[in-house]
């Protein structure tokens, strides 16, 4: 799965994206390409049959969705390349784990342990930052608060570490728009797959007026 990710990231050419410069047609195209990539990867990855546990299937789907997003966006923004690199290394790591240790419950318990640890660290960090912000209400404190928030943003946006503030904001903008498109594409897929199965009849129930959207 590594090779198509490389190729598609390099070949896709869409570069500058901001709320004003992107026309409606382009954003639709972007969403469609995300969806198409997602379906290609899902089919190729053998998600339907191979994976046993629900958790693994969810991870594979998320992997496919992020990879689809990165390839659809292309190599122009920095977060896209970082995301692609993270996915590739993550995929290799999972492959190695699956080959070496046949037991899969080990993997999931490791994940939960890491999550708990990370969450507790974040909570502690947040409490500390709040305390410090309340302590000194000066210019320096404000600068520190700002710095903490930009660091939080750096951690959220892939590839955000080691970026200056200006490019970080630009990347955040692009990333937020792309995430929104990804969410919309996935919602489309979910809604379609969860449409209720009606018995077949000759009369058209393909009713364009009745929006059979929220069938959940």
């Amino acid at each position, binding site marked *: 799965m590594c090779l198509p990710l490389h190729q598609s990231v390099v070949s896709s050419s869409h570069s500058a994206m901001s709320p004003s410069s992107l026309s409606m047609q382009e954003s639709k195209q972007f969403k469609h390409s995300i*969806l198409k990539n997602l379906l290609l990867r899902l089919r190729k990855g053998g998600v339907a049959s191979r994976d046993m546990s629900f958790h693994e299937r969810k991870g594979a789907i998320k992997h496919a969705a992020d990879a689809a997003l990165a390839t659809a966006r292309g190599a122009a923004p920095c977060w896209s390349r970082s995301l692609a690199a993270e996915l590739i290394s993550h995929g290799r790591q999972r492959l190695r784990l699956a080959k070496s240790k046949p037991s899969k419950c080990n993997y999931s318990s490791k994940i939960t342990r890491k999550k708990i640890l990370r969450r507790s660290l974040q909570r502690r960090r947040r409490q500390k930052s709040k305390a410090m912000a309340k302590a000194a209400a000066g210019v320096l404190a404000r600068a520190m608060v700002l710095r903490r928030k930009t660091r939080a943003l750096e951690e959220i946006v892939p590839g955000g570490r080691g970026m200056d503030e*200006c490019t970080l904001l630009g990347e955040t903008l692009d990333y937020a728009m792309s995430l929104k498109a990804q969410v919309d594409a996935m919602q489309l897929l979910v809604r379609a797959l969860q449409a209720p199965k009606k018995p*077949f009849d000759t009369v058209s129930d393909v009713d364009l007026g009745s929006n059979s959207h929220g069938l959940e």
Partner: protein
Amino acid sequence: MPAAAVGEIQALIPAPAAGPSDAASAGGGGGGGGGGGGGSFTALLGLPTSQAMELLLPRAAAPPAPASAPAPTFPSDPHLVDRAARFSAFASPSPSPPPPPPAANANAKRKADPGDRASKGKAAKKGKTAAGGEEKPAAGDGEDEKPAYVHVRARRGQATDSHSLAERARREKINARMELLKELVPGCSKVSGTALVLDEIINHVQSLQRQVEYLSMRLAAVNPRVDFGGLDNFLTTECGRIAGLGCKNGIDLEQVTWPEMGVQGARHLMQLQQQFWHGDLAHPLQPSSQWEKRGDGHPPVFSNSSSSLFGYDLTSSVSTSATPNKQAKDGAVIGGGG
């Protein structure tokens, strides 16, 4: 490189002005501080930094509209002082002493300088721009040919040495991007103050990431029931058709290769198709009208003699649909200032 950049910039200049929305132009104009079209400023920020910087040069020269002529007619003395100061700033990037007559003004500027640096320029800038800051494009036009310098219009009553100028340019860029982000994140336009806006942005991005996790969980739950192999084949052809719609029009639906999924699968497919065309308002209505004409629910005759366009397999679909996609996007990107 400068010649190529200038040529590229000439192509880009009319394009960004045509595109953006009113809200964007208002936000960009207010946040960026003018210097030509406000709307095109926000489009400018979509460009990478180096290009945006280069664009600042001829952009000052390009709009001849503000009728204030360069040298002769100066209504009042402060304006003359201002222009002279800026002119000297353009002549050399190093901090140059302002001309002797406005001694008081010079003192004010020098005092402003350390104050500017200490408070990061925000409060001082607000005070002094409220006093009289209008952007004047014309004075340093002759100097704009120098490629390597960043030319930024100094506001009235502000220090003009290179450090504060660069810092001010950086600040303006950051503020403009914050404006764009405030547009994007819902409910952020009324919040003032960078920290809260950043909070909102972080929350928004985190919520989007959580939504992706949630949706992938839902897809995992749904998965075993659906014949995934057939579904994505159909969707790929549909997406390929939508993507390739620019080059081939009027493709009849009969030519679509329907996978053999049975009735209920076909129902899914059609509803998904509707979702596509409901959700995408920009999509041409021709296919959905064909659905209406057909009127019934069952799929068209499964034709073995499908045209070569839709008979392709998945591996080649990526390349064939990527190319028209790329071409369409290239055109759009060049038009949009990419």
